[in-house]
């Protein structure tokens, strides 16, 4: 399960010219129909339920509509929604701040912790397989379940932490600290996720690199930062992208805690609160567009990385 073993790098250069030269062009009519359906149906589903809604958010962000009645009732109000988001909504800037804190926490604490665990587990100490499984367990849980589980830990009068500390702190209820409590819950899952991805990457690093470094007298810290880490650039980019996207997607845990209010406002929960039953369609769309614009940064950087060799 390693990067080099799974990506067909060694074959790629040999294969691509072949594919081009020997491309067989003679397809029967039936083949053409089959192939069109094979690509057409998935593309149609993707277009109707993913791309179109994404574009729909952009269009509707300039509208005022409560979702009732025909599309003729949509009122076009220019950039008023954006002006309201930036200028009036008392939740917006706190939400941006919380998303940024979420991102910073994952990027500077949780993801490095996951990488650190992976590096330690990679040393193959006795029991590392079992410990790896333990760190991995929360990765398979839904974030909603993670939220419920940590509610039992953080509860003011029945929670484990207050019981151990002898305090009565309302970890999830106090708006000054609940974001941090939620981040600890989120990290329980995120650290394991990063750990397993990084571990797979580490196993793909050519061992002779490390041996060479060791022969040259490098300490294990030097070996990691100067040799292994640079060699893992593709995985590092994936980790950065996953971290950013997870931070933007953050929703489930805070929704379980208090539906994203009182110190836990996030862009994603604001969109949900304004869409759906509340039916402030234009306003929710404007928020969605802001989230989309931010999300495009990691998405585009990931795609550039992933499709670098694929220009054909």
């Amino acid at each position, binding site marked *: 399960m390693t990067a080099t073993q799974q990506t067909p790098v060694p074959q790629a250069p040999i294969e691509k010219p072949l594919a081009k030269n020997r491309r067989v062009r003679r397809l029967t009519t039936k083949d053409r129909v089959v192939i069109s359906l094979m690509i057409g149906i998935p593309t149609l589903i993707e277009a109707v339920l993913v791309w179109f809604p*994404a574009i729909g958010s952009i269009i509707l962000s300039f509208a005022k509509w409560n979702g009732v009645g025909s599309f003729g009732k949509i009122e076009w109000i220019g950039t008023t929604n954006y002006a309201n988001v930036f200028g009036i909504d008392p939740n917006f800037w706190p939400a941006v701040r919380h998303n940024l804190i979420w991102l910073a926490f994952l990027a500077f604490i949780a993801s490095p912790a996951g990488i650190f665990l992976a590096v330690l587990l990679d040393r193959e100490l006795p029991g590392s397989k079992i410990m790896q499984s333990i760190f991995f367990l929360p990765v398979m849980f839904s974030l909603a379940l993670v939220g419920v589980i940590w509610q039992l830990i953080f509860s003011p009068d029945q929670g484990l932490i207050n019981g151990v500390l002898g305090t009565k702190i309302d970890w999830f209820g106090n708006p000054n600290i609940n974001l941090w409590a939620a981040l600890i819950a989120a990290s329980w899952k995120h650290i394991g996720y990063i750990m397993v991805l990084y571990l797979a990457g580490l196993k793909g690093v050519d061992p002779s690199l490390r041996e060479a470094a060791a022969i040259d007298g490098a300490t294990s810290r030097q070996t990691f930062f100067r040799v292994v880490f640079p060699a893992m650039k593709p995985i590092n980019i994936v980790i950065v992208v996953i971290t950013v996207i997870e931070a933007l997607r953050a929703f489930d845990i805070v929704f379980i805690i208090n539906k994203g209010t009182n110190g836990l406002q996030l862009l994603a929960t604001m*969109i949900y609160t304004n869409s759906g039953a509340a039916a402030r369609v234009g306003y929710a769309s404007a928020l969605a567009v802001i989230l989309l614009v931010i999300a495009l940064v990691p998405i585009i950087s990931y795609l550039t990385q992933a499709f670098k060799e694929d*220009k054909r």
Partner: protein
Amino acid sequence: MTSRASEATGSVAGLQPPASEPVARRREKKAAIPTGSPLTRGSKGGRIGILIFLIIAAALWTIPLLWTFYTSLRPNDYFADHSFFSVGGPYNFQNYVDAWQQAQLPKFFLNSAIITIPAVALTLILASFAAFKLSRVSWRFNVPLLILFTAGNLLPQQVLATPLFQIAKHTPLPASISDSGSFINTYYIVIAVNVAFQLGFCTFVMSNYMKALPIELTEAAQVDGASIWKQYWKIILPLCRPALAALATLEVIFIYNDFFWALLLVQKGDRLPITSGLNNLNGQFATNYNLLSAGALMSAIPVLIVYLVLQRQFVAGLTLGANKG
């Protein structure tokens, strides 16, 4: 040889597309070099320190789940006149029975099955269709299209939420099929949206996998006059079984764990899948954490089964997606 080496080769055999001979041999040789050789292992004292650190960290990691389990075993009445931290008194599984009956757990589980099973099957079938076309039948738009598929899966779900809700609401369905008269509150829309959202990732992974299969396989078949469908069904798909198994495991968990789509598109409590139903459970048992913990743990049973039996497949699926990038 260390267990690492055999495991690494094992996973090669498990997940690598059957490549041509020399390539396979080269890889095996590479994997056979033990990464933890004496040179790179570090000092003995350091190793013991690391081991102690890892053991403490792993112990901490289990606490939330152990605490949830402990809470689920304690009857709520007992704490009326005892501290929540007194360890005496009864331990039993009554909370599980009560939670099962009082919450709509059987219904939630059934809904999860109704949504997850067709959604995973459809996702894999459609993704393998698209991947076959995108990776093995050349076309000018293959790469742009694959980029669009992949990008779709990376979007935050909330970006799509508002228009999706309106699409579902304004697309009529006959009353005999849907009591809302539209796609709102139906399993169809939850399945469809899950399929659409996961399709990008699966297409990306499958097409990378299929690209790695030697081109001669389908060329030879084509020369022999095999139709496109035959090339897909008889040649390529059987070779993709390892990737399909890993993706199926991953997608079962992803879709089972999805919280948002059903929350957005289903407003009737009794149509929710269990993960979204956790939100209802959380409200219903807000004052009884013993029942809540029992219900939450039951909701995790399918996940725990996959964790125990198919963890390797799940990890393989995760890393398949990440490593190409």
